[in-house]
């Protein structure tokens, strides 16, 4: 590996200061490092500086307040898995995050890192999109909020400028009639890349009909995609076998999957249908349970 500078600011202000020359001193942000360090060893990145954000208090926030779940950019997946309220209220996001890497990797890997790695198959992204999550981005002298949906623009590329970093991620906590679920398909139980991942959040009315829904599908296109056609197939309907069959059929047409070493396009389309059916069934069941 090449030589590089390592800095670990202890405040957002100090981080901003460092971001000022992040263009002249090519900088990569280091949180868990489970993607970045591997990629640097493989020669995919050779930054002149690593900016470690783990010592900044704001990036270590993990709480639920004012109807929002807040997850700091340096919070590792294992901490989220141990957060009972988050697991209870946002089971789809929590189960997606729990699938990142392996038991060992979870102790380092962060959700925001998973987002920034911008893999089409990132496990947390479809669940975060379905949950309506957004991120707080800071630059040397600016700040903005971006939705997770649309943040990745291509494999390995995001809307983040070279002199920006993410401080935290927020998502609205679902109300009592809303529930979520995420499933991915991999040949192995862990340490694997999703062939397809499906996240869904849906709201049922008193009669069990779908009042609102968000569905997103990963690994069927260069970035995870929202699936309005799946939502259209269930909106206003009871989540029964007929609705699930319509949704599964719609899911197969989402995106434009490729054939590669992890699966053929046809296989991916088929699995998108199977998972969509399973995820919607689980989310609907959870919503019914919550309403009781």
């Amino acid at each position, binding site marked *: *590996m*090449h*030589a590089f500078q390592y800095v670990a600011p202890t405040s957002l202000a100090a981080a901003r200061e460092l971001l000022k020359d992040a263009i002249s001193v090519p900088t990569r942000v280091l949180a868990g490092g489970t993607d970045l360090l591997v990629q640097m060893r493989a020669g995919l990145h050779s930054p002149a500086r690593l900016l470690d954000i783990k010592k900044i208090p704001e990036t270590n926030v993990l709480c639920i307040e004012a109807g929002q779940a807040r997850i700091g950019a340096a919070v590792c997946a294992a901490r989220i898995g141990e957060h009972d309220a988050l697991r209870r209220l946002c089971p789809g996001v929590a189960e997606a995050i729990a699938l990142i890497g*392996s038991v060992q990797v979870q102790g380092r890997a962060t959700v925001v890192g998973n987002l920034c790695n911008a893999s089409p198959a990132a496990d947390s992204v479809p669940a975060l999109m379905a949950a309506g999550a957004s991120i707080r981005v800071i630059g040397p002298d600016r700040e903005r909020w971006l939705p997770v949906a649309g943040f990745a623009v291509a494999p390995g590329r995001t809307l983040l400028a070279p002199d920006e970093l993410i401080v935290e991620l927020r998502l609205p906590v679902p109300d009592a009639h809303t529930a979520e679920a995420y499933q991915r*398909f991999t*040949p*192995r*139980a*862990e*340490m*694997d*890349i999703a*062939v397809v991942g499906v996240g869904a959040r849906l709201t049922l009315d008193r009669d069990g009909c779908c009042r609102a829904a968000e569905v997103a599908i990963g690994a069927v296109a260069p970035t995870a995609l929202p699936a309005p056609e799946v939502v259209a197939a269930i909106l206003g309907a009871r989540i029964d076998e007929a609705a699930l069959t319509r949704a599964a059929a719609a899911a197969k047409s989402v995106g434009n999957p490729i054939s590669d*070493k*992890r*699966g*053929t396009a*046809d*296989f991916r389309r*088929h*699995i998108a249908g*199977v998972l969509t059916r399973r995820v919607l069934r689980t989310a609907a069941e959870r919503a019914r349970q919550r309403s009781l």
Partner: protein
Amino acid sequence: MTDDKVYRWIGSSPVRPDGIDKVTGHAAFGADRLLPGMLHGLILRSPHAHARILSIDTSAADRIPGVLAIVTGTDFPDVTAAMEETGESQIDVRDLARNVMARDKALYHGHAVAAVAATTTTIAEEALRAIKVEYEPLPAVLDIESAMAEDAPLLHEELRTKGLAEMPARGSNVAAVVTYTRGDPEAGFAASDVVIEREFSTPTVHQGYIEPHAVVAECRPDDQATVWCCTQGPFVVRTLTSKVLGWDVSSIKVIPSEIGGGFGGKTTIYLEPVAILLARKSGRPVKMVMSREEVFRATGPTSASRVRIKLGASRAGKILAAEAELKYEAGAFKGSPITPGCMCVLVAYDIDNFRITGYDVLVNKPKVAAYRAPGAPMAAFAMESMVDEMAHRLGLDPIRFRLDNAVREGSKAAYGPKFPPIGLVSCLEQAALHPHYQAPLGPNQGRGVAVGFWFNVGMQSTATLNVQEDGTATVVTASPDIGGSRASMALMAAETLGIAYERINAVVGDTEMAGYCDVTGGSRTTFATGMAVIQAARDVVDQMRRRAAKIWGIDPDQVTWRDGQAIPPAEHATEQSLPPLDFAALAKSAAKTGGSFVGRASLTAQGAGAGFGVHLCDVQVDPETGKVDVVRYTAIQDTGKAIHRAYVEGQMQGGAAQGIGWALNEAYVYDAHGIMENPAFLDYRMPVALDLPLIDTVIVEVPNPAHPYGVRGVGETPIVPPLAAVANAVFDAVGVRYCDLPLNPPRVLSGLLPAAG
């Protein structure tokens, strides 16, 4: 049939002598060695699967500050001698040398073409980029069919097929044809009520040892080299390295590090001669450590295979005839495990009429290396699938059908001789009685049975047993400890000496400090090196009996050894009140009574006992995704006497886990140019712990008459049955007979919903 002898130590499961080192991180593996002034060596590898090397220009790389040595093929002697005895067997040293470093042709993607040593790996990487190699790309042959085609491009123009009636005039990619026949197969098929025939395939798979190849080499000005490396056999590294370099064996000292797995893949050499030459050129020690990608692209794997089997049986359930045609990829140089594949394919069954034909086929892929029961798993996948299908066609229970055809003591093995006592029938009977075989299955679940066999081998081993003055003893051998052999050696020494296991330390020596040992492989270490340890311990007992006799002033023949004590004959014990002298007392007084005790033994172990195993596998198949989950697994094996029970179980579980990986998801994925697309554990999917249930084991102990304690050998047999056990279970679950591995979700789904695959 089991061994009912009562032992004090053998058959227990104590903590291993190297346990503290391993769990505290103190154990030094191949890459842990650091020497002052050490350089880092890297290898430049061919970007083509098949290409003529027109020129190599290293001048720009040479000028980079910090680059201290560069070697290419021309720095190695031109080895002309072909087949050489290497202790274990004959190997083609010219092929070996050209696999270590390409000469005129690169024969696979990843083939070494040059190497550099520099003060840092970053500089070494830069130097690799600065080496200019001019290639003339050649068409590559990437599978058995295209390699055997009439007009196939040839890897080695001079190669002629061996094993044909006449030496062919033309070159070929088929290095050898082997045949075994017995009886009249045509008549056997004609007499059969049911005849079935299918062809099976398995992909290239890697041993997947967790520790990449690593070496540190130091070379003195007088060309005396010292090599630290992770290997299954330091003496074999010394022999092979000396052949490739054209040096005397005595000019190379090999010190084995701890080893993070080998499974056969570390019975050969890749880096050692290169590191020595770089060290010699630079005058500095050189470390070379492969990346995982290099391990996948340029070491190991085992053969991809195609196996066609035709089986005929009577309605009553007797196999009357078999025909097997096996084609194994050798990689870029001859020498797939086709011969053992052919010897094993029908070995579990007593069949009067058969014909077995095997082909050793060269392709532009890395040269295969030994992998746990080399050649047997692919053969067993085909045969055990067919036996399962035949039982199904005949409406017979698969274990009953196997019992009715199984070989037993006195049966003629397919490869010729009659079997001595073997445990196949015992294993099948245990399987039929096991609660697993009776347990009910859930929806989408199925159960498979399969049999496996491996010869196990003997070969050369040496042991020294040094008695210390505090009454402890140190066992020294040069058999690297891969699966807990130090503990097994100490157990056998304790049993033989009659002293406590805790009073024995077992260590692994180097090629100067220990006597000759062949590799830790072939399931031979507990059998053969164990035999040497037992003999060395007996030597000490003998010396102690003599010493006691001298102390007592009686004839040595009057002294007996029991429970770690020299005991005088009864008349002396009472009349002259001579108390027994125990091991510790004799050791303590050794300096005053004639010097310390050193036992030694060197032998070529004969009579390795064949190991049969039977595996039961339950799977659950997701009918919508094609995912196969192994939900219950039981491995039953005749191991002979189990010396350290927990490690015997560990070998059985580990072999089963590797075989399940081979069955379900492991495969080299190649692109059209012969470049492996998945050279990392992320996409080369070995099972992780969460993918497997606890693998239950049943140890059947049919003693091997050739070993003092009845040891057979354990490690290889358990990888043989799982491929078919899983496939047979999938058949039982979904009614589809899959003939091509791996049974990954897309493949399984394509059999269930042909439109979705």
